[in-house]
């Protein structure tokens, strides 16, 4: 093994030493077809030594295919690749590694239960003649690399315990250890916080200083403007242009990428929040997969006509919170109330409801993982359009499915929400593009006319055009006085689309923010747990239950009071925040509101909500029809 490793290093060194060509990599006239489509059509791309080159394009534009060809995962139908001026025949990732090309995939190729060091040396292990591993031999070398590039990587920490940013650095170290000169990154910033993105961009600049060349795939225009030297834009498998970043701007890039002008910022009216539609109190969720409580005593309200966004770094309990709200997973404890929008209807306690009862009560859910939850991929489009309603009256009659009714309903949604597919209602969903699959889900959920919409990462993996469309639909739902609970990992989306941001960190809500009043950097501090806000405890819904009034109204009134307190007097925990935040003042307001809470508590009622939900559900169901 050791001699193999030596050979590899030797090979890369000889190649790297050849400075005859101005370009480190030249891809000439690359074409690649898959059955039914031409993914790459006569693409030429040159990488200058020591530049940061961005590859920009929508989903399905052929970026990943092109990179897979360069990295040896696919072989091109036509075209040639030159590395350092010499024709290269890259048939496998091993060939690419020998030529000094390394790739960081979007989903990291790391072994979770190995340490950083073990992952770095994996595949190029320092072993002696009889095959005994000697990691210490190269440890120093890797530590030097870490120091040189200011990577704070703990080599003895297991990958599963590392934050995502550190995992990414392990991936980069893996390439550097193998003396890679050309580093390919596939959407490297998709999973990072703003701070981590800044760090990564600094690493990029340092790597380039050392003579490395970086090629990164992205569809985030701001990053490209910030860090790249040149950018190549792909559309529908063809090169639109390669230009210097200095000579262009975001608008032009997006036009090149999509082929038309795109609104990059969501256009929306100021938000006018109305009554509370959803109240969550002290919700705890225990995850059996992670063997711990992932949602801890979460309480919040969602109001009609407002987009409430749950932000946070992936894996801080947001997904489990949504599962508990929609009934996909059982909550350990806590209460969930939904306002009944029907006249004189009583509010509905959801926490003991099944998924179907929640659906009928008025919860629409755009799931985070559209392939896992949102769609039955092998069903046709029309069956997916009635996935939650197939048993209801027009679509089914005494147990028999009415295809005719389903078909015409599906056609209606397809037209209304502009879902494009090969065979209309009869298309198999698996064959549709991701954007149209998502549009189908969005259309289906919005058309159910529910008072509450829970949208989880509604634009994940979609291109600018589809994002624009879906954002507009969500804003439209808000303007129709629906309550919208948005879960998003994309910070731009969080800042752009939401009217109110709740930040989740380690299963708790640590901040309640107004997107207009905070910066991206500040949001990042809350998300990474560096900062937290002391939130006032929300009034208990049950205690505010008064005969003759609906429950949630009182909760709203009390909450408004609570909000005033919170806005004027954010309680301060760490010193850093203390400097920025205004001095605490207005003690009276707080006491006043406390007094009101006590009054509310003194009006207990013997009626409980649990007795009525079934009746209410039926009403709700009829309303939808």
């Amino acid at each position, binding site marked *: 093994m050791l001699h193999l490793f030596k050979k590899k290093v030797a090979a890369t060194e000889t190649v790297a030493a050849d400075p005859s060509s101005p370009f480190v990599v030249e891809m000439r006239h690359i074409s690649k*077809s*898959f*059955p*039914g*489509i*031409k*993914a790459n059509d006569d693409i030429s791309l040159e990488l200058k030594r020591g530049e940061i080159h961005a590859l920009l394009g*929508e*989903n*399905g*534009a*052929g*970026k*990943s*295919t092109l990179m897979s060809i360069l990295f040896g995962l696919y072989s091109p139908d036509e075209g040639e690749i030159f590395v350092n001026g010499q024709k290269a025949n890259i048939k496998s990732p091993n060939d690419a590694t020998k030529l000094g090309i390394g790739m960081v995939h*979007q989903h990291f190729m790391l072994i979770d239960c190995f340490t950083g060091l073990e992952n770095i040396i994996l595949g190029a292990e320092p072993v002696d003649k009889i095959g005994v591993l000697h990691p210490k031999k190269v440890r120093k070398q890797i530590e030097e690399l870490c120091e040189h590039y200011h990577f704070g990587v703990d080599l003895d920490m297991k990958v599963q315990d590392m934050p995502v940013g550190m995992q990414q650095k392990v991936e980069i170290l893996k390439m550097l250890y193998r003396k890679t000169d050309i580093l390919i990154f596939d959407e490297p910033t998709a999973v990072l916080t703003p701070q981590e993105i800044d760090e990564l961009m600094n690493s990029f600049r340092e790597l380039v200083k050392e003579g490395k060349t970086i090629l990164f795939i992205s569809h985030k225009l701001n990053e490209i403007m910030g860090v790249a030297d040149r950018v190549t834009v792909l559309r*529908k*498998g063809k090169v639109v242009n390669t230009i210097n970043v200095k000579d262009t701007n975001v608008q032009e890039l997006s036009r090149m990428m999509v082929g038309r002008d795109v609104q990059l910022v969501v256009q929306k009216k100021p938000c006018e929040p109305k009554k509370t539609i959803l109240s969550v109190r002290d919700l705890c969720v225990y995850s059996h997969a992670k063997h711990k409580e992932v949602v801890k005593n979460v309480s919040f309200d969602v109001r009609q006509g407002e987009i409430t966004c749950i932000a946070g770094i992936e894996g801080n309990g947001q997904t489990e919170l949504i599962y508990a709200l*929609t009934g*996909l997973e059982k909550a350990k404890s806590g209460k969930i109330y939904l306002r009944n929008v029907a006249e004189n209807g009583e509010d509905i306690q959801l926490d003991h409801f*099944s*998924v*179907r*009862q*929640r*659906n009928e009560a008025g919860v629409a*859910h755009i*799931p985070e993982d559209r*392939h*896992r*939850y*949102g*769609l*039955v*991929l*092998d*069903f046709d489009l029309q*069956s997916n359009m009635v*996935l*939650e309603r*197939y*048993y209801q009256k027009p679509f*089914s009659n005494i*147990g*028999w*499915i009415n295809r005719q009714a389903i078909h015409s309903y599906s056609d209606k949604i397809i037209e209304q929400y502009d879902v*494009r*597919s*090969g*065979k209309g209602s009869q*298309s198999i969903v*698996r*064959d*549709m*593009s*991701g*954007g*149209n699959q998502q549009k189908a889900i969005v259309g289906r959920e919005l058309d159910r006319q529910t008072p509450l919409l829970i949208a989880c990462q509604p634009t994940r*993996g979609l291109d600018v055009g589809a994002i624009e469309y879906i954002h507009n639909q969500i804003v439209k739902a808000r303007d129709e006085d629906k309550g919208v609970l948005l879960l998003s990992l994309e910070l731009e989306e969080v800042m752009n689309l939401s009217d109110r941001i709740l930040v989740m960190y380690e299963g708790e809500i640590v901040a309640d923010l107004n997107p207009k009043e905070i910066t991206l950097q500040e949001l990042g501090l809350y998300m990474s747990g560096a900062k937290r806000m002391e939130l006032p405890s929300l009034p208990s819904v049950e205690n505010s239950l008064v005969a003759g009034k609906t429950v949630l109204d009182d909760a709203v009134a009390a909450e408004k009071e609570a909000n005033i307190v919170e806005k004027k007097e954010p309680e301060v925990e760490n010193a850093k925040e203390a400097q920025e935040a205004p001095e605490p003042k207005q003690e009276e307001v707080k006491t006043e509101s406390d007094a009101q809470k006590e009054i509310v508590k003194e009006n207990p009622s013997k009626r409980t909500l649990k007795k009525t939900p079934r009746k209410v559900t039926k009403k709700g169901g009829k309303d939808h029809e």
Partner: protein
Amino acid sequence: MSDTANTAPIGKSRVSTFFHKPWVVSVLSSLVSVVVGLLVGFIVLVCINPQAAPAAFASMIKFGFTDKNSVANIFYSSAPILMTGLAVAFAFKAGSFNIGGAGQYMGGATFAFVGAALWKLPWPVCILLALIGGALVGCIPGVLKAFFNVNEVLSAIMMNWIVQGIFYMVCQSNSAILVTDGATTKVSNINPSAVLPTWGLEGIDPNFTIGFVIACILAIIVWLVLEKTNLGFEIKACGLNKDAAKYAGINEKKNIILAFTISGALAGIGGALYILMPAAANSGLDIKYSGIPSQGFDGISVALLANNNPIGCIFSALFIQYLTYSGTGLGSAFTHKIPALIVGVIVYFASFVAFVRMMILRYGGTPFWRKWFKKKPAPTGGTEAPKAEPTTGKEDVSK
């Protein structure tokens, strides 16, 4: 995945759209499996005895059609494996592998036999009893899977042996059933009303009963349930994507249990159709404690070859029964196990149905000679207005 619609589609001709119809693809892929299986069987014959092989193979192929009686035999004997095939196909549609067809078949047979021989019940009641017996045996792996996440393959296989043991025990312990050691009493002697009626079909063959007709009707009913009812929608949704079914508010636990119960009931009816068939009823049953009846496992072949289509099961059951029957036509130069081998190969290839289907989807409509002579097919495959289909392949191009 499949974010491919943005990219220019290659047009397709009319021929190609014909080849993309789901049923055409299914039928074609099954036929391909059959042809390949027969071919491999022939090669094996050639390997064993090159001289005798062609004649023996030809006589085997012809054997099923020698006279009216042999054709009739294939028809009426295929009823039990059609039922077990339906059972397996139904479970497959629900996303479960019911390998316990044999046990459920035995369960049904036990109930029907007890009903016929001990309680002297008429045949429709015996079939109903068999339905209950099969359903009881079938629902156990379903319950275990739904509530305790027990692997259905393991629990169903274990059920096979348990039920086999129970059947043996019932027969051994009851002198009314057991006549001589290792053989049961003849149902037709003690309770003629339990033997399946012929309703005029005896004109074709004295053994030809309505068993095959019942099985065919049940196949159509299963198809109707799967395609036209809420229950079918739920079961298929659970089978294709359990998580999405849960998201849609479908009770997936209920559906797993229900699917296994229905599947078991179907296999159980198969057991009754065998026991109450004149051929079996007249001779008594061989109850040596040797092994599990092969019909249960033949059902898996039937379902796989039919691509889990209930209607297709009718044809594949006939075909597999035909091959089994034809074994006797091979002649003395070869062992009679050769047809079993051919069935094995066919099933082996039938499990490549998905692969064959992919190949058809990829190359269907593009005649192979064009692949050979022209390196690049023209961008539009046909002159007739090509339908704009986004993609055919399921390749993940974008990622």
